[in-house]
């Protein structure tokens, strides 16, 4: 039996001096690397239980329709069908292409049988006007698709900030003014593992087991409690591995509720993962936007006035867009006016996606800064430094400028021109994020045989969370990472936060550190009689403990643990002082534009990123690279496309919805900002996804003078910007 350490902590935990660290702030190969590289890692998608049913949902192909009938008779007689139910009645309407378009669920003995039965469902429906574009939503007399109560149009209430007259006056007095309208498409998360669950029911009030591809292991039991008809404590959620979330997997969603319901009704385990096409139709997206941005600067390049009018395009949801001036500073804050509203279409609601709203805001603001620099004949780096308050941004911009070769670049204060149809340019962008930290717990158990377990419910989205769950404990106890077993992805373990907004590390790492520190002090209390030094006067290093200043009084780890009569359990909790959530980043991109074909090739991307103490430099560089790659993909390739006439989602597969592949990947340099010496930790994954596409657009402009105001930066977009509509 384990018991909590009862003695109060003798001292507060700390991350320690960086020079003393043996495990953290180094390259740590992820502890689940071998199971992932060999296919042994079991994702929800891979769970196979005895007697398991395979479930599928039927999604109506267009966003709006009146259901006349859903005939399940033929389908229910198909081989292997165990459960089939319609979710809509005759006379019901499909209001949008999202969870409201799910018409039926089928569960069968095999995946093929479930698919066949789905195909045998006969739906009679009258199609209604699709309302898939903002133009359609804003048309006179357009059907109201907004879900707001008592909505009489598809336009949400505008959020106005500032005094328009003051902003206008400031802009009138500016030396240089730029005004542009930017169009930013809707982006999909494209988690490689689709959304879904495997629900294993249990009789009476026994514990139900749910495998979930989720960003919220601790939160999912509550999300399924009502459907499963039992208290959340009677639902165990397991997420040993999950194949990407990026903000789209916070709750069980309709697909989770249906899996639970079918498991309840049939009494059999149910596997319900969305298909790729379903995923595109109903599993969320990053909202698009249209932004009319007007910014003015004085002769020194200082921003003096700004006006933004923007529509957020989040389908039936509100969408997100932070207010201006994004990251940059306008000398007189009163001269900033913004009016942001939501325009609703009958399409899937936006969800959080890695730095919600920020890449959209970055795209318009960085473009305006570039153009003001050119109007004033200023260097692109200088104008940024002039308008950014944080000295951290200043040093990071200088660092990425150096790495990308800015000093030797010819077009630093004006766009270049193509030579023989080839032009090379460089662009920049900056990011900020405030990764929170909040209540989270961790248990560290040290056993008499020397084994150590670090356990917290958290999920590893691919960030490397599982690795630091072990590594932080290893550092505190002077062990190697492989001597600590990390247990995560289980809602029966001490609760952790939902992974959104880069909060996981800032929440979990302090709790892990606290638990490890308590375990260390618990062991030191045993040593006071043996090595005769008080708690707090020991050094734990290289698998040994010794009295500080007297290396002769020392014991190996295994001998220390042998002093334990029973396992030592240390319970850690979130400690605010171990975390600080304020981070910065700068990026530079270098591109080559073929001005004859319009093709853009990104040659190099550089990021410099701070985050306090890097827990694992290897995984950190992976996250920074990942941010750059996703931003590149967003800028160059990604665009959701609807058939505007009938409302079919045309881009519901990975052939037509393009994401970046190997051949788009340029040289990438992920610089960890080691001038940030804060003795704190926090997450950072949102920041590096924010400015990459902005830097690429800036580089295209810098190369050849084409300011792209529409994403993605396809060849036709470049040619049209260079030469006008052909």
């Amino acid at each position, binding site marked *: 039996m384990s018991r909590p350490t009862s003695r109060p902590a003798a001292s507060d935990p700390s991350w320690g001096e960086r020079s003393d660290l043996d495990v953290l702030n180094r390259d740590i190969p992820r502890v689940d690397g071998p199971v992932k590289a060999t296919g042994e890692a079991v994702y929800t998608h891979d769970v196979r239980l005895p007697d398991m049913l395979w479930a599928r949902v039927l999604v109506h192909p267009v966003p709006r329709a009146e259901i006349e009938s859903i005939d399940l008779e033929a389908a229910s007689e198909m081989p292997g069908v165990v459960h089939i139910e319609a979710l809509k009645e005759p006379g019901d309407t499909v209001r949008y292409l999202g969870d409201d378009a799910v018409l039926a669920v089928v569960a069968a003995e095999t995946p093929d049988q479930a698919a066949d039965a789905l195909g045998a469902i006969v739906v009679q429906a009258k199609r209604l006007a699709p309302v898939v574009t903002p133009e359609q939503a804003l048309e006179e007399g357009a059907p109201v698709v907004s879900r707001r109560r008592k909505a009489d149009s598809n336009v949400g209430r505008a959020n106005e900030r500032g005094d328009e007259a003051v902003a206008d006056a400031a802009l009138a007095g500016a030396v240089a003014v730029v005004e542009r309208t930017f169009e930013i498409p809707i982006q999909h998360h494209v988690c*490689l593992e689709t959304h879904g669950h495997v629900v294993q029911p249990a009789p009476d009030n026994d514990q139900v087991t749910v495998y979930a591809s989720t960003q919220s292991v601790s939160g999912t039991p509550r999300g399924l409690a009502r459907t499963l008809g039992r208290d959340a404590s009677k639902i165990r959620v397991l997420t040993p591995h999950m194949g990407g979330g990026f903000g789209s997997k916070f709750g069980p969603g309709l697909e989770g509720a249906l899996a639970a319901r079918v498991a309840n009704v049939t009494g059999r385990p149910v596997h319900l993962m969305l298909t790729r096409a379903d995923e595109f139709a109903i599993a969320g997206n990053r909202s698009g936007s249209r932004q009319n941005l007007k910014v003015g600067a004085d002769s020194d390049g200082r921003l003096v006035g700004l006006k933004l009018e923007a529509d957020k395009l989040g389908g039936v949801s509100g969408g997100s867009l932070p207010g201006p001036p994004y990251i940059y500073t306008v000398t007189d804050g009163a001269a900033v006016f913004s009016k942001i509203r939501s325009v609703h279409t009958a399409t899937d609601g936006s969800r959080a996606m890695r730095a919600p709203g920020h890449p959209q805001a970055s795209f318009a603001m960085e473009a305006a800064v570039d153009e003001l620099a050119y109007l004033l004949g200023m260097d692109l780096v200088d104008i940024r430094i002039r308008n950014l308050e944080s000295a951290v941004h200043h040093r990071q911009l200088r660092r990425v400028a150096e790495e990308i070769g800015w000093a030797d670049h010819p077009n630093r204060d004006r766009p270049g021109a193509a030579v023989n149809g080839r032009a090379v340019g460089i662009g920049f962008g900056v990011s900020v994020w405030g990764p929170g930290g909040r209540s989270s717990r961790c248990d560290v158990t040290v056993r008499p045989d020397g084994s150590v377990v670090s356990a917290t419910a958290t999920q590893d989205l691919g960030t490397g969370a599982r690795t630091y769950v072990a590594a932080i404990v290893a550092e505190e106890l002077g062990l190697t990472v492989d001597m600590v077993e990390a247990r995560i992805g289980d809602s029966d373990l001490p609760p952790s936060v939902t992974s959104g907004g880069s909060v996981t590390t800032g929440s979990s790492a302090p709790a892990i550190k606290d638990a490890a520190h308590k375990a260390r002090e618990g062991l030191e209390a045993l040593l006071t009689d043996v090595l005769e030094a008080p708690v707090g006067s020991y050094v734990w290093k290289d698998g040994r403990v010794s009295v500080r200043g007297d290396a002769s009084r020392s014991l190996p780890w295994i001998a220390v643990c042998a002093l334990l009569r029973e396992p030592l359990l240390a319970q850690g909790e979130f400690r605010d002082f171990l975390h600080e959530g304020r981070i910065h980043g700068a990026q530079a991109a270098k591109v080559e534009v073929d001005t004859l074909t319009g093709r853009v090739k990104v040659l190099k991307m550089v990021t410099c990123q701070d985050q306090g103490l890097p827990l694992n430099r290897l995984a950190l560089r992976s996250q920074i690279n990942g941010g750059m790659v996703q931003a590149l993909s967003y800028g160059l390739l990604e665009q959701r496309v609807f058939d505007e006439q009938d409302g079919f989602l045309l881009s519901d597969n990975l052939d037509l919805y393009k994401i970046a592949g190997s051949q788009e990947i340029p040289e990438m340099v992920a610089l960890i900002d080691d001038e940030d010496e804060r003795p704190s930790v926090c997450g950072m994954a949102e920041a590096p996804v924010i400015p990459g596409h902005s830097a690429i657009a800036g580089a295209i402009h810098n190369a050849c003078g084409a300011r792209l105001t529409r994403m993605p930066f396809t060849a036709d977009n470049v040619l049209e910007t260079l030469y006008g509509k052909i």
Partner: protein
Amino acid sequence: MREMDPSSGEPSAISRRSFLKGATQVAAAGGIIGAAPASEQDAEVEPEVETLSGSASMELLVNGKSRSVEVEPRTTLLHALRNEMKPPLTGTKEVCGTGSCGACTVLIDGQPAYSCLSLAVTCAGRPITTVEGFGSADAMSDVQQSFCDKDGMMCGFCTPGFVVATHAALDRAPKASLDELKYELSGNFCRCGTYPHVFDAAQAVQKDRARGEDGR
């Protein structure tokens, strides 16, 4: 519905040709049913040909072992591996199902192939290597070890496909330049953005293998 019983029990009892022939006939017969009386339809069927429908048992040669699976003519190799084998081989992932992403990459006859686009019946008697066939967590291949060392993975869902594709690429083009490696791996998508570290992993294997050859 009648199921075919492979009479000989040999792994190659059902050739791709005979299986598909049977399957095609079912489809053709289905088309006739609406148009002609049953008696006429019966008369048109060649008596010697056995009509197949539903699933049938066949052998697949996976990672050096003969494995029995129940498949239909339409069953993809991917679904045979993941859903029909006992125990299932779930290392090979399904992401797009349409041959776009490479998560389901396996070797067939030593060549990389999308198992979501390969019908299981076409693989009878042909050696298939999945990610599990290259190594286990306790005994990884050089490529698998290198993916761990260089952090050539984040969420890990694309990793099995990349590991198989990297093995195939380095076998086919051991001295590939970085650009050539990017070309070789261009059939695989990663959404986390792991690519730079995947390239690092592949190049580290190239170096190690070259060193090994020099040493010999």
